[in-house]
């Protein structure tokens, strides 16, 4: 048994060695990718060092430690998979046509929104199901394979940028929202105890945890996206709602307590933020379609939905994120249109108008717009 475990440790050590060599041999022309490559190689060396310490410690040959060295091996192996999945593969897959294009687009976006952070590493390692995601640990954003050929989903890129901004400016963005949330649920807890509705108590505790650890950040990133890209993000959210309505999940029925707040809550917040950035006309247009959509899809609303997502908490997070974005001097969508030349946000909004007005002619129009973006040069 112990010989096998020792073999597993040595195999993992050797794999890391070969992967490190593969990465070191690559020559990256983009500075963002070169920086990411450096992070990847460094992470691999650090993991190799930790594995080597256990191999040399002598405990792999002693039965007394078997359970613990299996646990340590699992931890190292998970770290190895994390490195392989989120560092090694994105670097290996990097191409100037896809990732290089997005680096230019994101750099243009960062200039337009006045974001002072450095441009994150972009990878098209995702797919249509996993969709867009950000991993702040490695300062990266992943998009579906082939996404460089499309425009419509790019509004969601601003949500992912929002996650990276959130990591740095959480306090400015959320401010006293969490305090208000705690006060509100303390009152609900007391009321539930007084009315002897014990079934609500556990539900309330779950809601507090999710507001604190998941929902506030996700909603804040929706709101940052709306602030930065305007109505295009609301249209993009409508697309997501169309899919979730098919499985009765607009109100996240039965799975209300999950990582993202329900789509209905997100749309409520999105429409409010549109009002705050002077996009009331567009907000009214989307609201009208949204209400029709809710009527047609007839998704079920859980009983305690309004208790968990009260309007007062939506109001507080919308206002706080709006104030936070203004305070950290992010440039809103209307300001980008006024103060910069053809911002990416404007192109994405035009795309959403075009797809609704002329769906048949959209693809050709889109190709022309993407060609313009591809002709951007690096501003490093």
């Amino acid at each position, binding site marked *: 048994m112990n010989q096998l475990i020792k073999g597993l440790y040595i195999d993992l050590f050797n794999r890391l060695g070969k992967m490190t060599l593969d990465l070191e041999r690559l020559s990256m022309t983009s500075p963002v990718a070169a920086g990411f490559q450096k992070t990847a190689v460094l992470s691999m060396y650090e993991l190799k060092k930790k594995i080597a310490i256990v191999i040399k410690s002598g*405990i792999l040959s002693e039965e007394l430690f078997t*359970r613990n060295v299996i646990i340590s091996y699992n931890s190292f192996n998970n770290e190895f998979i994390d490195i392989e999945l989120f560092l090694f593969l994105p670097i290996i897959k990097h191409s100037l046509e896809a990732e290089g294009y997005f680096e230019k687009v994101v750099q243009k976006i960062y200039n337009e929104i006045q974001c002072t952070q450095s441009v994150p590493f972009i990878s098209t390692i995702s797919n249509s199901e996993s969709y867009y995601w950000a*991993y702040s640990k490695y300062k990266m954003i992943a998009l579906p394979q082939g996404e460089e050929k499309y425009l419509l989903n790019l509004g969601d890129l601003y949500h992912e940028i929002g996650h990276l901004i959130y990591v740095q400016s959480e306090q400015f963005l959320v401010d006293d929202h969490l305090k208000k949330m705690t006060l509100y649920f303390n009152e609900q807890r007391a009321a539930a105890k007084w009315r002897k509705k014990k079934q609500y108590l556990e539900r309330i505790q779950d809601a507090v945890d999710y507001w604190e650890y*998941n929902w506030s950040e996700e909603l804040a990133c929706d709101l940052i996206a709306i602030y930065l890209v305007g109505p295009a993000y609301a249209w993009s959210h409508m697309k997501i709602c169309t899919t979730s309505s098919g499985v009765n999940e607009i109100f996240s029925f039965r799975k209300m307590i999950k990582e993202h707040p329900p789509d209905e809550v997100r749309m409520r917040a999105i429409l409010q933020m549109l009002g705050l950035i002077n996009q009331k006309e567009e907000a009214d247009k989307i609201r009208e379609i949204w209400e029709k959509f809710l009527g047609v899809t007839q998704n079920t609303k859980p009983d305690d939905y309004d208790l968990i997502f009260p309007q007062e908490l939506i109001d507080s997070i919308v206002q706080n994120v709006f104030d936070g974005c203004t305070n950290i001097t992010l440039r809103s969508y209307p300001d980008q249109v006024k103060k910069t030349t053809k911002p990416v946000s404007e192109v994405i909004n035009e795309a959403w108008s075009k797809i609704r007005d002329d769906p048949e002619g959209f693809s050709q129009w889109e190709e022309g717009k993407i060609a313009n973006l591809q002709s951007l040069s690096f501003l490093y």
Partner: protein
Amino acid sequence: MSEIGIISKQYGALVTKTDKINDSVIVLKKQFLLRSNPEKSKTIVVSDKELEGAKNDMLIFIDYLKELQKVNHEPDFGILPGKTILELKKLFDRKPGIDKTLHKIRGKLKKDKFLEKEQFDALDEIVAVLDNERSMLFKKLRTARG
């Protein structure tokens, strides 16, 4: 549309805790082994600094576990995620003796005494719960959806 960063934070916290406690058990076991088989010192070494750190980390964790068992206690989710706390509580319900064993371990560590085999078994069971939860969270991290 990402939740990966949020899961990653929870996962990171659990990895740190699991590794720290598992490493502390390894250090305390080294001490146990060297005491019963001094000839093992040719291959296995443990420093006073390592021992001190392991004892301190273990004492803090045992106190945290004791707090968890109090009625109406509000656990610190910054230390362990809610789901992991629930699994640890289930372990204490399933094996009521483990509570007493932890109490004995605490006493021995406080008095700088050596732990015994059955006490390591209890610690291994607790680490196994943490490891299991960590593995599940890792699976979730890998398959996080937008």
